[in-house]
C-alpha cells in the first residue's frame, strides 16, 4: 500500500492574518477514501487548496512521492483533481465539451485526442447528451457531473471533492454517490453530511481551528464529535 499523500506540519496564514492551518499532519494511501469533517471555518477548504499547490503554506507536502515545489507543481496538479464547491466557478468555458477538454489540452494532448477523451469521460458520468450545451443552461446536478468529468479527464490519481452534494436533490445525490463509488481513485471528501461520508469513505479526519483533533473510523468519529443531527 503506497502513500499518495503525505503531509507534515502544514501551516497557513491568510494575508489578512487569519491562521487557517496550524500544523496539520495527514496521509492517504492509494485507493483509500477519507472524509474531512470540521466546523465552518475550521480550515478544510484551505487545506484542500494546498493539495495541488493553489495555496502554499509552510510544512512539507508529498504527493505520489514527489515533494510539492515550484518544479513539480504542474505534475502534481495533473495528479490531484479538485472538484470545487461551486460548479459555476469550475465551468468557465463556453460549451460543456470545450470545458472538459480544457484540462487535457493543457496537459499537451492534441485537440483531437483531447476532444475524444472529453467525450469518453462525459459518457462515463452520464452527460453524453450535453456536449454542445452551454454550462449555464445545465441543472445543478448536471453541472456537478460536468465539473467531475472535467477533473476526471485529467486522469488524476487522487480525487478531492469539496462538499459535492450541496444543492442536489436526493435522487441526484444517490446517482452521484454511485458514480463516485465506481471511480477507483483515492478520494478526499470534505463534507458536513455524515450519510455521504459513511457511504463513501471508511476513515475520517476531524478539523478544529486549523488542527486535526481526531481521526479514525468514520462511524466512530461521527459519534465522538456528535457529527450528525436529526
Amino acid at each position: 500500500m503506497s502513500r499518495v499523500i503525505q503531509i507534515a506540519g502544514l501551516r497557513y496564514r491568510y494575508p489578512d492574518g487569519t491562521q487557517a492551518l496550524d500544523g496539520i499532519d495527514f496521509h492517504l494511501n492509494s485507493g483509500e477514501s477519507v472524509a474531512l469533517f470540521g466546523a465552518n471555518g475550521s480550515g478544510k477548504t484551505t487545506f484542500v487548496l494546498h493539495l495541488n499547490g493553489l495555496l502554499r503554506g509552510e510544512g512539507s507536502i508529498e504527493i505520489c512521492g514527489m515533494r510539492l515545489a515550484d518544479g513539480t507543481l504542474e505534475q502534481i496538479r495533473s495528479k490531484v483533481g479538485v472538484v470545487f464547491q461551486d460548479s459555476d466557478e469550475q465551468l468557465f468555458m463556453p460549451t460543456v465539451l470545450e470545458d472538459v477538454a480544457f484540462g487535457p489540452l493543457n496537459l499537451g494532448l492534441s485537440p483531437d485526442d483531447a476532444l475524444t477523451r472529453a467525450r469518453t469521460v462525459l459518457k462515463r458520468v452520464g452527460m453524453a447528451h450535453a456536449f454542445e450545451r452551454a454550462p449555464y443552461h445545465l441543472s445543478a446536478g448536471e453541472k456537478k457531473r460536468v465539473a467531475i468529468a472535467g477533473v476526471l479527464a485529467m486522469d488524476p490519481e487522487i480525487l478531492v471533492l469539496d462538499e459535492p452534494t450541496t444543492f442536489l436533490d436526493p435522487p441526484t445525490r444517490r446517482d452521484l454517490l454511485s458514480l463516485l463509488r465506481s471511480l477507483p481513485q483515492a478520494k478526499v471528501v470534505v463534507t458536513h453530511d455524515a450519510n455521504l461520508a459513511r457511504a463513501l469513505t471508511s476513515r475520517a479526519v476531524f478539523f478544529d481551528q486549523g488542527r486535526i483533533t481526531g481521526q479514525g473510523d468514520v462511524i466512530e468519529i461521527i459519534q465522538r464529535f456528535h457529527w450528525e443531527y436529526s
Partner: protein
Amino acid sequence: MHHLVIDRWSRGSSSLHQRDPRAKLAALLVFLVVLSTTRPGAQWAFVAYAVLLILTANLARLPILGLASRAALVLPFSATFALLTWWSGDSLRALALAEKSFLSGTAALLLVGTTPLTGWTAALESWRVPRMLILVIQFVYRYLFVIAEQVQRMRWAALCRGPKQRGFRLAAGLVGVLFARSWQRADGIYHAMLARGFRGRFVPAPPAPFRSSDALFLSTCLAGCLAIRMLL
C-alpha cells in the same frame, strides 16, 4: 433574459446555422456597409432589404416577429433623433434614420441568432482580433447570467424588507457586496483553471475549414445586396 432566447435560437440546425461563421460575419458587414451608404430617399431599396432579411430569417427558421420585436429595441433612440430631424424639415432623412438603425439591428440579430457565441468569436479571432479581447468577451458572456441573477436576488432581498426601498447608500452597499462576490468568484475561477493545468495560455481550438458552400453563401449575399443597391 434576452440573451438566453438568442442563445436558444443560435443552437438551431438550419442550413444558415451550418454556414461558416466567417462567411456570415463577412456577409453582415457587407450588408451593413451597403445599407449605411443607401441614399435616404430610396424607399424601394429599404423594402428590398427588409425582404432580404425576412427571407434569410425564414431560411434560418427564426421567428420573424420575435426578431423584429428584439430589433425594435433601438427604436426609442432612433425615433427621438428621427423626430428631431423631421422637425428640422428633412422628413426623408428622418425616415431613413429609423429604417437604417432598425434594419441594421435585425441583421446583427440574424448573425447572433444563427451563430453561437463560440462561432462568431472564433471568426473574430481568425481575423486577428486580439485573443485577450476574445477571452474577455467569452468570460463576460459566461458570467453575465450568473451575476445578473445575483443582483436580482439581492434586490429582491432588499425589497422584501423595505417595500419603499430608497436610499443611495443602500444601492451603493448592493454594488459593493456584488463587487466583493464577483472578485471572489474570479479568484475561484482562476483556482479552478490552475487546478486543471492552466499555464497562462489558452490552447486555441483548430479552425474549421471554409467550405465551398460557405463561399457560395457569401457571394449570394454579396450579389443580393449589391443588386438591390444598384437597381433600386
